[in-house]
Each structure stands twice: as structure tokens, then as C-alpha cells.
């Protein structure tokens, strides 16, 4: 089970992308737990996931959020702007999986 957390200001636009990513994972018969949260919930949630992807509009928080995520030894990376805008579930899922893989 891959655990991926998405994070933006209110968890609204990232939740749209989550849907696409889950669809893609289903297609690949991959077991995943992907959820979107607003930054306010970051600290409560981050411990339950293996990687955090940020909406590009909150990229400026990366350093701070990375510090909080480092306690759990996981990475916080912004999503590519175009992938985000085009809601490319497959590309973003690949990105998340590669981050989890490289972090091992």
C-alpha cells in the first residue's frame, strides 16, 4: 500500500487531482491511499503518509513543511505546474512513486 498525501491551501484543487491519481492507480491495479489536505491539517496528517506533494501555489511553504516532514523521514515536493493544471493523474502518480522509491 502506497501512502501519498497532497497538500494545498484548502485541499480543494488537490482533491480533484487525487481523484485522477486514484483512477490511474486502479487502472494499474496498484494499492494506494491518496488524500488531499489543507495546510492547516499538515502536521496532524503528515505522519500517516510516505510522501507529500504540494500544489504549486503553496510551493513557497516547501521549506517549512519539509522541516516538519523530516521528522518522519519523508519528502515534500511541489507538483509540476503543467501536470497540476492539466490534472495529469498518471504523471503525478509516477512522480510520487519515484519519490517514495528514491527515499528508501
Amino acid at each position: 500500500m502506497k501512502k501519498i498525501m497532497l497538500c494545498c491551501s484548502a485541499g480543494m484543487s488537490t482533491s480533484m487531482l487525487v481523484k485522477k491519481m486514484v483512477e490511474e492507480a486502479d487502472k494499474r491495479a496498484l494499492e494506494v491511499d491518496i488524500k488531499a489536505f489543507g495546510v492547516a491539517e499538515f502536521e496532524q496528517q503528515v505522519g500517516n503518509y510516505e510522501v507529500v506533494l504540494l500544489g504549486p501555489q503553496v510551493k513557497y511553504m516547501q521549506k517549512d513543511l519539509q522541516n516538519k516532514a523530516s521528522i518522519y523521514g519523508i519528502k515534500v515536493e511541489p507538483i509540476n505546474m503543467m501536470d497540476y493544471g492539466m490534472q495529469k493523474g498518471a504523471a503525478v502518480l509516477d512522480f510520487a512513486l519515484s519519490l517514495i522509491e528514491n527515499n528508501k
Partner: protein
Amino acid sequence: MSSLYSKLISVIEEKITPMAGAVGQQKYVTSIRDGFILALPFMIVGSFMLVFIFPPFSPDTTWGFARAWLQFSINHRENLMLPFNFSMGIMTIFISVGVAASLARHHALDPLTSGMLSLMGFLLVAAPLKDGQISVAYFSGQGIFTALLVAIYTTELYALLKRNNITIRLPPEVPTGVARSFEILIPVLAVVLTLHPLNLFIEAQLGMIIPEAIMSLVKPLVAASDTLPAILLSVLVCQILWFAGIHGALIVTGIMNPFWMANLSVNQAAMAAGTAIPHIYVQGFWDHYLLIGGVGSTLPLAFLLMRSKAVHLRTIGRMGVVPGMFNINEPILFGAPIIMNPLFFLPFVLVPMVNASMAYFALDFGLVARVVSMTPWTTPGPIGASWAANWALSPMIMCLICMVTSAIMYYPFFKAFEKQLLDQEAGNTNPSNSVTQSATA
């Protein structure tokens, strides 16, 4: 143009981004914002009650149903007002708990304890008790700045005491639950021993209690927050940050919220008293005239994109139009893209500023009803505008006019961008690869 643009981008990246990061992540700004988010549902539902109290019919209506409703509202005014009074009317209670609880997270303190500590602190300074009666005069918008300051003060004090290990220490055999209940004794005592004397001192010196003093201090600021320059400046900051790909609205609303809330409560009080609604710039104005379809008012643009000849833009338009109706426009902003796209800089910044000016004057001249209700920001523009003004029709028309001007202003830039993409598609024999691929995917 291109060197000017690259200069602009480098200024944004080197100067503005770190600054926005610093402000946007400043712990008080984020705590205030998150605290308001916690308080919001109460205020939205409370505001909703206004419709039952002041149904959207003219008092001389001849329609039987409307007459009956108006009569019912007059007969039961007090009972109908109760849910409103205990939500909007005591908004500072929710805000004081919410902000302290959010700030507590920054200090790894227990949010519930911090919230209660802040509530007590707020009541100490803002709720004068006379003859067994609490005055609620400062529980509404008038007490908002006091609630914020007290929430910050009490939580910081709690954090300071905890950091320096100033607490009642019990032997390790004592169960943790019991120990925890003793741990909070000193912070409570510290809050009582500092805030209460301060309040008494200020009352003796100035003849007014703390919220009165604070309100008279910030009065010029509150007044300034409801002017056209303030509107334009806040929109400009938000748009420029967003253009750089930074969530500017998060920062601007974090700062504007206390002012908007204070002004909204004044508007509601005026409505209840049957006098003219004084304030123009409150949350509903921002959400439903300036952010129609999200920041930059991109919903009209989404409609334009949907019919574009360029496959990429058509795809983005179709993908973005439904979320756009609920004011979520990241697909449009990042997908078109508008962010960092020099072609869209001008309309993206100017559209909300032009709409702000038009709406401001329309409201100022009394042509359009003013905001009296708290609405969810995800409500579709015209409906939200009407809801915010107690279901008046004029705001809906105003919002539709703003949508038309947005479409007109975006149109030439959209066409220029479309041409660029079409040239690319035609010039490229393997048709603009990634773009069309994803469009068909």
C-alpha cells in the same frame, strides 16, 4: 518587452516570493486565518438566519405568502434572532478559541486547553459583569481585535511558561491525566493576574475597558479598510502574487479577515436597526465580484477557452469550467497557463481591479445592495453575490456585468495566445506533442 518581462520575473522570484513566504507563513497570520476558518461555519449558518428575519420582500408587497412571512418574522423577531445572536452576535468567542487553538499547534500545545485559556482571557477583558449581567457589546465585530490580541497573548504566555518548565510538578506516580490538569493551573493564574489588573488599570486611567480602547485605536485602520484604494491595493497584491504562482489570496484574506468581519457585523447591526448599510468592502464583495470563478475572475475565460480552436485550450476550458463555477480555478491558472504567462499578465491583474472599481461605485451610489451575510467562498458567483446581500437581485446583475467585462477584457489576450498555440500546432509536424497527447488522454 521580453527583457522587461524577464526582469519582472526575476524580481518576483528573488524579492517577492521570499517575502510572501515570510508573511504567508508568519505564525500569527496563519493562526488568525485558520482560526477564522474554524469559526466560519457558525457565522455562515448564523448569517443564514437573516433571511428568515428579513425575508427578501418589500414591506408593501401584496403577495399573500410574502405578507404572511413578514408578519411571522415581526411576531417572532426575538426567537428568530436567537440563533443569529448566538453565532454572529458572539463571533469573538469562536474566533478567540479558534485562533488560540491554531496558534497552539505552532507551539505543540494542547489546542483545547489553549482555546479555553484564551476564552477566559477574552471574557476577563471584554465582558464587564454588572449586577450579575454580562454585557455582550464586545462579543460581536467590535471585539474582534481584542479577541485576536488576547488569543495571541494567552497562547504565547502559556508557551513561554511551558518552555521554561514553570509548572506544578507532581511525583511521577501521579497519573498523567491528573498531572495534566495541574499543569494548566499556572498559565490560568498567570492570565488572571496579568489581564485582570491591566483591564482595571486601563479602565481607571482611560475610563474605558480594553476592547473599547483597542477599537478606538484601530478605528482609522478599520475606516481605511473600506475604501477604494484599500480594495485596489489588496487585489493588486493578491493578483501579482498569484501571477508569480503564489497563493496570494491566502495571504491577503489572512490580513483582511478581521476588518471584513468587523465591518460585516456593523452592516448586520444596521440591517437589524433598519438603517442604511454602511460598509462596502467585506468578504462577500471580494468573493463574488472579484474572484468570480477563482482569483482573476477566470470563469468567463473558461467559457471562452471551451470554444477555442486550439485543442489544448479547449481541453483546459472543459476541464476547468465546472470547478470554476465553484471558484476553484487551478486547472485554468496552471494549465492554460496563466501563471507566469506574459501574455496574460495585464488582464489577470486588471480584470479584478476594473471589476472592483465598477462594483465599488455601483454599491457606493446605492445602485446595488450591500453585503450583510457571510457566504461560503465556493458558492457560484451570481448566486453568492445575491445570497451575501440577503437575496437581493441587484448584486446578481452586478456580478453578471463583472463577468461580461471579464470576458471582454480577456478576449483579445486569449485570441493572441490561441494564435500562438495554433501556429505551433501547424508548424509542428508531430503536432505539439505533449499538449495534444494530454488533451486526448
